[in-house]
């Protein structure tokens, strides 16, 4: 389980995160929802050790973050993070070289599934194709957790469909997925848990299924209550 406890971060005299706490369990899809600037990406970066926090703690399976844990936790940022001059085949080789948890067979399957060419250069990929390859780099690891930052942001309809299909496939099964979005749209029926962020704090955290049964509200209904209040 990813356990985020009372994390704080100040940036340019502003409290970007002001005591954020939540958990993301293995086998569940947890979604961090919030308007732009709510601190969603900062939380993912803090979990991955890509930005220091001023207070609080982050534990993954009850362990503090250390380099070896990067084998267990894969990160898919909101943009592709491989050098533009690299070919897709070289990027895959890079991942295989550095990660013991890299699954080459799965990477090959995903290359076919997303219809990607090994010889294409990273710099020449369209935004949608880059998003697919970015997801491939995350899913290619046999990791317990997958962190995804705005996986649907700014990409075309067909790429969105291809990526959404991944969420209903066995590629995600058994993993703990923590993703961020500011447009819940096509994700609503896929997520198990929603964490709503506002002004650097968690304003609501709930199980989506329970919310539907007990209060008859969808995630979007709760978002309207929180953000329009």
């Amino acid at each position, binding site marked *: 389980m990813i356990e985020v406890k009372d994390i704080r971060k100040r940036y340019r005299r502003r409290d970007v995160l002001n005591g954020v706490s939540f958990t993301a369990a293995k086998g569940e899809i947890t979604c961090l929802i919030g308007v732009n600037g709510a601190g969603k990406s900062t939380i993912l*970066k803090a979990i991955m050790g890509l930005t*220091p926090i001023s207070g609080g703690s982050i534990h993954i399976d009850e362990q503090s973050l250390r380099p070896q844990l*990067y084998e267990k936790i894969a*990160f898919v940022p909101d943009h*592709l993070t491989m*050098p533009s001059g690299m070919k897709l085949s070289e990027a895959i080789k890079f991942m295989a070289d550095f990660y013991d948890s890299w699954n080459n067979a799965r990477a090959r399957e995903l290359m076919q599934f997303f219809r990607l060419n090994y010889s294409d250069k990273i710099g020449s990929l369209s935004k949608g194709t880059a998003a697919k390859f970015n997801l491939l780099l995350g899913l290619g690891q046999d990791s317990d957790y997958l962190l995804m930052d705005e996986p649907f942001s700014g990409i075309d309809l067909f790429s969105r469909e291809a990526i959404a299909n991944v969420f209903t496939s066995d590629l995600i099964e058994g993993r703990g997925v923590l993703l961020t979005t500011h447009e819940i749209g096509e994700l609503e029926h896929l997520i198990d848990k929603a964490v709503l962020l506002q002004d650097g704090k968690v304003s609501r955290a709930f199980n989506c299924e329970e919310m539907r049964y007990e209060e008859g509200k969808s995630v979007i209904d709760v978002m309207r209550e929180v953000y329009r209040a």
Partner: protein
Amino acid sequence: MNRYLKLFHMEVHRFRWMLAILMGITAACQISALIWTLTKELYRRREPVPQDIGNTFQVSAPEQLTFEWAMANNQLLFILPILICISVLALYIFFIWYRDWIGRHTFIYRLLVLPTARRNLYLAKISAFLLFVFGFVSFQLVLMPILNVIFKLIVPADQRADSHIVDAISRNLALVELIPRQFEQFLYYYGMGTIAVLAIFTAILLERSYRRLGILYGVLYLSGCVLAVMSPSLLFDSRHPYLYPNELYAAELIMFVFVLCISVWLGIRLLAKKITV
């Protein structure tokens, strides 16, 4: 260790073409300068030259040409490629870090989440950079016997005398600085250079960690380093000779080692704990 070597290989691989181009420029410039000087001199010897023009050249050209003479007469075209290489390498001290942050696909995200201690990234970058520097110096050393062979191929045996490559190096202003004759001096030059690179690495990491405020921290840090290494000379100058020359030398050496240790420790710590993307 294994991942350090992979990172080191990656850093070398990323700069390979630039290194090859720099070596190519150096070889092309130096070989063509040598050929041009020798053919010009041989032509002058074959053809009758008006007395007033020939006189000025004849003073520097000996009866029998030597490789040492050829080196001494090729200062500019030997210095130029060396200066180009030094400038590119000096810029690369910054680019080796900033290239991972700039552009549409910021590679630093990936590098920082590799399942290995972040110090390996730091060590890979510094060792790759040192390899480029020493690789270039070695290339220059390898080029010398090649230039000597070219010299022998161009100049007829009856018009040339043998000379040592070491003497040829000492006659060229650029080469004598690049490849000092005494090993102690070599260690001193390149040791100081390495410490300067490490201090700049730390300043870059301060900027990457604290951004705008980091620029100030970086400048202050570099100023502090300069002050630290100069402090023995500043405190105990020739007007206040409290220390023997050997003691002053030891004090400066200690300060260099101090700056080296602080720079490496702080650089690795910033990369592990404070860096932000």
